[in-house]
């Protein structure tokens, strides 16, 4: 018999694993802003990938409900405020599993806002949604294993990978190789990726110093023309059509913060994450967190955390306990990975005074130098006041100057006024069309 209901936010690996684990024991609702399950990693354009389906099918057959294409705009201790393309509703919750994943981390360098420069994940998503990349020269630059995955995928879609630059040193990566000994599946993945990338230059301790723009006479005027690379004392220019840039991921913590969940102790140079106990329980009762939100850890860790969170939320602590050891092993690996991918302090020197830091409001670095805190930069310089509400630039200013940014105000994401008017429990419903589960 099923006892209680579990609402899971985010249908990436962690959320899907939580749904599959909880569905036999509880009434499960899984929601995501994308139309189908899979999240960023198992994004399949219109359909559902096999990996996502393997987790979702059993959950669905056990009665789990799917609520796609809708975003959580605000939340309190009793209900979530949801918005989809046409309407909004308040959805009461008993137990919550938060698995909202992560966003790409961007670090600024001259030209990082040019058309043609994208996040490594962003370019993958564009290609999955139909962008034709065949025959296009793509430079992949930044840090971390996601670069390899992005490069392999783009190559499989016909892109010419001009090179992969990794800012970490060979020595740091050797540490990573050691750490991967704890995880045979990681070792297998890595060697698989390198096999797919045979012939592609892979340069360690190397980064993009600047992206250059096509001149006005060129047919692609205004678009990315080339990147200027640096490796030690060597500097050179590499023409390319696209730059897929990635410096790892930053957890999506906003909703958890709004619900009062405490942050994990800060780790130097790493974006904030949410603190959880052995069973993925956050500091607020009845809220479990799984996947990247607890600290960037990748697919295997997300699956284990999701499974544990789903079981724990469904009251199956004894079952959840079986997975703790495996999860801890993955966490150990994730921590080693984070250490290996530590960003070189030299990267902080790349942006110039003209380099835009806040893209929404066009605020260049030079203007930010006048200010002493995130709040001052916001109030007097409009930094972080635009549509993304500082999600990208606050991470940059945190990295550059250790400015602290923490907001727990609704809405967690821009939302229609008609939706926000439904925030109160007793809101008059006449103003907005409801959508039905």
């Amino acid at each position, binding site marked *: 018999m099923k006892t209680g209901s579990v609402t899971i936010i985010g249908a990436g690996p962690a959320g899907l694993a939580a749904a599959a684990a909880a569905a036999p024991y509880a009434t499960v609702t899984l929601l995501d802003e994308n139309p189908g399950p899979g999240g960023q990693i198992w994004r399949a354009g219109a359909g559902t990938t096999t990996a996502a389906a393997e987790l979702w099918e059993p959950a669905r057959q056990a009665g789990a409900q799917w609520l796609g294409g809708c975003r959580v705009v*605000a939340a*309190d201790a009793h209900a979530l405020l949801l918005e989809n393309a046409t309407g909004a509703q308040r959805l009461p919750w008993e137990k919550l599993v938060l698995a909202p994943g992560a966003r790409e981390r961007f670090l600024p360098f001259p030209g990082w806002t040019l058309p043609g420069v994208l996040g490594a994940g962003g370019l993958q998503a564009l290609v999955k949604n139909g962008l034709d990349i065949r025959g296009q020269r793509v430079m992949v630059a930044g840090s971390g294993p996601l670069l390899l995955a992005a490069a392999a995928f783009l190559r499989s879609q016909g892109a010419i990978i001009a090179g992969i630059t990794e800012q970490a040193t060979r020595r740091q990566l050797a540490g990573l190789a050691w750490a991967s000994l704890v995880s045979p599946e990681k070792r297998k993945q890595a060697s698989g990726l390198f096999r797919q990338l045979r012939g592609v230059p892979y340069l360690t301790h190397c980064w993009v110093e600047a992206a250059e723009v096509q001149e006005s006479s060129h047919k692609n005027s205004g678009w990315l023309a080339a990147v200027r690379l640096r490796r030690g004392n060597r500097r050179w220019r590499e023409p390319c059509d696209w730059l897929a840039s990635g410096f790892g991921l930053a957890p999506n913590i906003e909703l958890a913060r709004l619900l009062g969940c405490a942050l994990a102790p800060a780790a130097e140079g790493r974006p904030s994450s949410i603190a959880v106990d052995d069973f993925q329980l956050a500091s607020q009762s009845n809220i479990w967190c799984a996947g990247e939100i607890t600290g960037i850890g990748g697919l295997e860790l997300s699956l284990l955390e999701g499974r544990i969170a789903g079981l724990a939320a469904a009251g199956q602590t004894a079952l959840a306990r079986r997975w703790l050891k495996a999860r801890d092993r993955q966490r150990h690996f994730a921590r080693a990975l984070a250490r290996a991918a530590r960003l070189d302090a030299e990267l902080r020197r790349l942006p110039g005074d003209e380099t835009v830091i806040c893209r929404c409001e066009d605020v260049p670095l030079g203007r930010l130098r006048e200010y002493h*805190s995130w*709040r*001052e930069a916001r*109030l*007097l310089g409009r930094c972080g*006041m*635009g*549509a993304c*509400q500082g999600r990208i630039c606050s991470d940059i200013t945190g990295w550059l100057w250790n400015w602290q940014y923490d907001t727990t*105000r*609704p*809405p967690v994401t*821009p*939302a*229609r*006024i*008609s939706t*926000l*008017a*439904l*925030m*109160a*429990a*007793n*809101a*008059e419903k006449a*103003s*907005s069309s409801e959508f039905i589960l």
Partner: protein
Amino acid sequence: MASSNRTFDLAVIGCGIVGAACARAGTRAGLRTIIVEGSLAGGGATAAGMGHIVVMDGSEAQLALTLYSRRLWQQLIPELPEAAEYRSCGTLWIAEHEAELELARRKQAKLAGQGVACEILDARQLMEAEPCLRPGLAGALRVPDDGVLYPPIAAQWLWQQAQNAGAVMRSGAIVTRIQEQAIHVAGGDRIQAGAIIVAAGSQGAELIPEIPLRPRKGHLLITDRYPGFLRHQVVELGYLQRAHAGTESSVSFNLQPRATGQVLIGSSRQYSHDRAVEPDVLSRMLARAQSYVPRLGDLRGLRAWTGFRAATPDDLPCIGPLPNRPHIFAALGHEGLGITTSLGTAELLLAQMLGAEAPIPAGPFQPARFFIETSPAGHA
């Protein structure tokens, strides 16, 4: 710090827009001026508010102060930096039905009597002036010379004017106590000054407990950019009544077009110390705004926040010397009108301080009205 060894003619506590205006007025009068700020200049109520420059007629005194202040702003506008985002958008006081339109006519007569340009719009003229409003409204009173600006930058500019004229800032200094002609700062420091202006907003109550200030919380929400959606500041005519109806929370309809194309949505009032955005109040405020502007529902809201207005029991600010300590002056209790009345406050205060003729009657603003008379026997 060097500043603490010097003696000043004037020390201003608080670098919000009111304090910055007072410091500027002080330096213009030739006073050696220091401003003491505990946190971020312009980061209190100045940063949280809407930023309107308006004429308000809640009382004769309020009308005199806002009208005088608006005139001062209009003189400054050519000098303000573009980042202060001043826009002369005018205010539309919306009359929902015929009875309210009658109120609008009376308001029009009263304002016109004071020389304020304003006109009555009928239903059709209102729809032409502001097409986003719902049909069926009775009309409006249009006050064309009202405007909006971005307060943190305006406050910073006022402060820079003072600084250019020689004023100094002591930042990060928490004032623990004030005496006649001396300010005590956390850490044991003392700042000497011939006169002290307390312009510390809601926190002023800690320094002058005789003035019964209460924080009146407000909610605001700002949208993404929709240039041209809204042309005027629009306010429901019942605003003053609703806003000051009593002690429970109230919401009223008030929208502003910002220079960025964003729409700023207000407003709410409740006595509270809790900084959190309250879903219940925010919902009601937005529902009320939507009832006047239906298409507002489709705009995307980016951010909601709260702030605290320093309110007095009679809804008038305190602008003048303390009766028991004549070298200490209050510039407190501006409620929701601190941006508008900052300039007028500064001039009125300096006139009293220097014994000059007051630009408007200072009587209604005297802090003395809140001081309970004690037996004079014990005092010299």
